[in-house]
């Protein structure tokens, strides 16, 4: 038995009250944790989708004539005097900007004309690994190229030109062999042939040369404008086209949702705190005589504060642990039900639980502070003289 005996006995004695308070606080914490987890996961998943959709920055040589763009890349365009970028220099420059942590993929490309049975075809040199990261929707009939002189072809190009697996494409000083046909993607990829960048370069005699480069930046609140400016200053002779608006719009949606979640959480917690405060106040009023007696036998006012503060703290600790666990379980449940990718991102984090519990404990003591202060003001004669 010690100073904690009184608050503990009181919590036990008023089991219903204690239960209600813990429940309310738990629900508050639970929804905060759940809303947070869900909004984080949806944010992550949107972000991931953003990179899955493809690159969000496009870099190509400065052009004073017609803008050569990926979508507009037709065979005709290639008859212009095409400018090239240096693969190595461009790649190194992008990988060394200040925000380099945000750069997830750098995918350089060289487009060359080849022929199949005298018909001209466009062969795009790519780096397989990088390309797959921004085009993970790619699916293939046949098999993936393993040798440098192997290639894959878009479904539309294959149909139009009658190219099948094992067809040879003449390119520069040699040939590449088709090993796979891309399933329909609905993008311009359907019209192209893809081969290893370095093979295309060497067959075409254009070592280190590329036409343009696609970059995917992961932007969880990252400044896309800054990234563009940083790349631009490293590569002054390029035009950089950032799909900023899409990125910005998505980020602002996520941020809006997060702000909303924060607001709702704050409201829930404020209500919980308010309830605790009211219950504690009622408890203080109900126990005035006890407080007076304790003061009369020499309990200091700070001891009185401790007794009520501790009572609130225990409620907070219970609610913190239960709320965190409940929030964890229910967010996993909820996310698995609405089938959002990245559910695995929600980690059970004991340190976070401890922090959350500490936070709630402090919050509940703060909520009980006013009633507890009121309790410390009670003097024995205030409550004994009215007998």
């Amino acid at each position: 038995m010690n100073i904690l005996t009184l608050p503990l006995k009181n919590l036990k004695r008023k089991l219903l009250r204690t239960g209600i308070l813990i429940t309310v606080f738990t629900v508050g914490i639970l929804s905060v944790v759940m809303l947070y987890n869900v909004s984080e996961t949806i944010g992550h998943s949107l972000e991931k989708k953003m990179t899955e959709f493809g690159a969000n920055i496009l870099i190509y040589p400065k052009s004073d004539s017609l803008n050569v763009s990926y979508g507009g890349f037709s065979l005709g365009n290639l008859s212009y005097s095409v400018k090239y970028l240096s693969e190595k220099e461009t790649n190194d420059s992008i990988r060394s900007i200040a925000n380099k942590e945000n750069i997830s993929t750098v995918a350089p490309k060289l487009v060359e004309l080849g022929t199949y049975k005298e018909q001209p075809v466009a062969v795009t040199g790519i780096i397989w690994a990088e390309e797959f990261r921004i085009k993970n929707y790619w699916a293939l009939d046949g098999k993936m190229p393993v040798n440098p002189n192997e290639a894959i072809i878009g479904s539309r190009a294959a149909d139009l030109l009658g190219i099948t697996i094992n067809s040879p494409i003449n390119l520069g000083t040699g040939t590449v062999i088709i090993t796979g046909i891309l399933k329909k993607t609905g993008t311009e990829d359907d019209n192209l042939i893809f081969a290893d960048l370095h093979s295309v370069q060497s067959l075409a005699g254009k070592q280190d040369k590329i036409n343009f480069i696609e970059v995917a930046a992961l932007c969880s609140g990252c400044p896309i404008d800054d990234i563009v400016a940083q790349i631009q200053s490293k590569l002054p002779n390029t035009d950089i086209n950032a799909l900023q608006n899409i990125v910005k719009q998505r980020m602002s949606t996520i941020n809006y949702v997060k702000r909303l979640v924060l607001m709702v959480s704050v409201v829930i917690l404020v209500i919980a705190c308010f309830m605790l405060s009211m219950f504690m106040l009622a408890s203080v009023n109900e126990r005035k005589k006890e407080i007076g007696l304790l003061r009369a036998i020499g309990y200091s006012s700070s001891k009185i504060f401790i007794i009520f503060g501790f009572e609130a703290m225990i409620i907070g600790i219970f609610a913190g642990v239960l709320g965190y666990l409940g929030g964890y379980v229910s967010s996993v449940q909820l996310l698995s039900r609405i089938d959002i990718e990245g559910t695995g991102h929600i980690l059970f984090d004991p340190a976070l639980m401890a922090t959350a519990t500490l936070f709630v404990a402090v919050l509940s003591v703060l909520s009980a502070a006013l009633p507890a202060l009121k309790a410390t003001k009670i003097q024995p004669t205030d409550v004994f003289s009215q007998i």
Partner: protein
Amino acid sequence: MLQAHNIVKSFTTDTTTNVLKGVTIDIQQGDFTCIVGRSGSGKSTMLNILSTLLRPNSGNVVYNGLDLGKVSVNKINKIRQNDFSVIFQSFHLFPYLSVLENVLLPYLSEVTPVSKKSRAHAMQIIERVGLKGKEDRLPGKLSGGEQQRVSIARALVKQPKILFADEPTGSLDIKTGKDIIELLKELNSEGLTIVMVTHALEYTSYADTVIEMKDGQICGEIHEIAGSA
């Protein structure tokens, strides 16, 4: 041992009532002092001032040479813990604590748990007030007289120097009240200084000193009538 000098106390609610109008009392060590007087004469107010529960408007209370009006709150708390004890007409027991826990209350203000020694001491006191075997009961399961004994045990557990009692028999029947007074008298004869406020004039026969109050002033003081009970 405890001197109150020229105590003035008034309460202001809607109007100001002058409850004590310059009261001087000297409590001797080992004395059983009774304060008597009609209802509203200021007995309880005076007792509360003596026991530090109330502060006078003017005048001073001196305990073993220490002016209680001039010491820190901390020191007052220490005196309430170790030197002074109070019992009341209503017993102010905690209904959800057992007899033993109620008696141990003065020890429960610390983080360090109550020692075995203190617990054994409390058991002794409980036995001393005649409640042996009832230490695990809740107060609601005790008679009024037994409840007052618990409150006396709680007041005694820290071995105070002075016990202040405000009508300790007020809510008890005559027989039970007399038992309580006899218990107090026994404790007094073991050396405890007692200051008791009472309505019942028959109990004054137990006292060494009887102080009679009227309208906030002392109107009579009788010494050394002890032993005539």
